[in-house]
């Protein structure tokens, strides 16, 4: 009887449908009743509400960044897309995400590219990169004391040590350092 009452409430329109099947049930029931008044011009116009989207964006921009990879995932951006847009490598993107590259040695252009790729402000990204280094999420350990993280590397060292970078990209990144 639970399910029958539940379905009756969906058909009555007293419960909001939550699945495709319930939507179908609700719409079939709607077809049997008198239709509600037609859509008012005010309700039909999305541009009366556009300012609310700006409020959402502003709120998102005020939130501290919790991770570069997280931010990319929120935008439904794949790791490959992130790497391409930042013109870095998977290794470097991950190192930035874990704050394992010293902010002071990172070219401004790299920070700008990261910010652009994840739709955040340069200030948000700078603040994030200046934080304490962290472990990867999957890291675990068995020792009684937590292992200490190594000191962050300089950007130059990270670029030189990354075996996955193409020569072309490595040169481009190193050139940015020299131009700072």
């Amino acid at each position: 009887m639970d399910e029958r009452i539940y379905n009756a409430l969906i058909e009555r329109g007293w419960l909001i449908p939550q699945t495709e099947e319930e939507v179908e049930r609700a719409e079939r029931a709607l077809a049997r009743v008198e239709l509600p008044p037609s859509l008012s011009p005010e309700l039909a116009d999305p541009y009366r509400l556009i300012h609310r989207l700006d409020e959402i964006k502003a709120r998102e921009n005020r939130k501290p960044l919790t991770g570069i990879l997280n931010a990319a995932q929120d935008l439904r951006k794949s790791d490959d897309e992130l790497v391409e847009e930042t013109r870095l490598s998977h290794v470097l993107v991950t190192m930035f995400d874990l704050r394992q590259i010293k902010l002071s040695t990172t070219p401004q252009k790299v920070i700008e590219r990261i910010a652009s790729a994840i739709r955040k402000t340069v200030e948000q990204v700078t603040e994030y990169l200046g934080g304490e280094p962290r472990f990867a999420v999957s890291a675990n350990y068995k020792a009684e004391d937590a292992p200490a993280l190594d000191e962050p590397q300089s950007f130059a060292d990270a670029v030189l040590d990354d075996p996955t970078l193409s020569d072309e990209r490595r040169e481009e990144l190193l050139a940015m350092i020299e131009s700072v």
Partner: protein
Amino acid sequence: MTSLQTGGSATVSDATDKQLFALMAARGDDDREAWAEFYRRYIDDFRKILQRLPQGRGDELAQEAMIQAYERANTFRSDDALDADASRRRTLAWLGRIARNLYVSSLRGQRGVTVGSLTGEDGEEALRLSEKGRFLARGELHREIEELEAKVTGTTDDDEDEISDYRRSLQEGLDALTQRERDILIATYEHYDSAKPQQQQRLPPAVVEEICQRHNINADNLRQIRKRAYQKLARMAEKDSQIES
């Protein structure tokens, strides 16, 4: 019209829902236009589904859910295997989940019924919430449902006529409910999980407390009111079967 960055479609109005969600989630130059197109596409069908909500806030809820859809665009998962109708229902169901969360949150912000309305309608005394009455015993809710179902059973799912008669009688029964009975029944079923078997349906204690606070009753009152609602529905079903015999 703006050229899209994904999918290759020329304009936003030609974009699939999946493309619109991608544009909204990307928060790029096309996101507002993508959202406006999504809004135009769904607002009418969605607000019709919400029109008969008891609080009469269908239009407002539909708009709020649309705005939240922009904020949560990155959480929508499309299914390329679905045809156009099924895909549309999937989107409406996703919007429905957003709307229900908004609806339940808004009800939580409301104060419960006044003492006067409690005593006036049923002659019951308004009782203060007590520690004992605060939580229903586990399984008690569903024992009462089973008892009522025992009175009503006789219909089987094999008989299509009986199903539609039963459904009609349920709808007539819903018409016969008082405002409070309806509100409590709806509040109960807002937490119903159709994916779980009946034996696993449980109202969390916190939800029971919330419903009781909303209506300024204790758990015993809640059970009695809901039982009365079930009895009304059962009586309609019995009356229907008697007319036929």
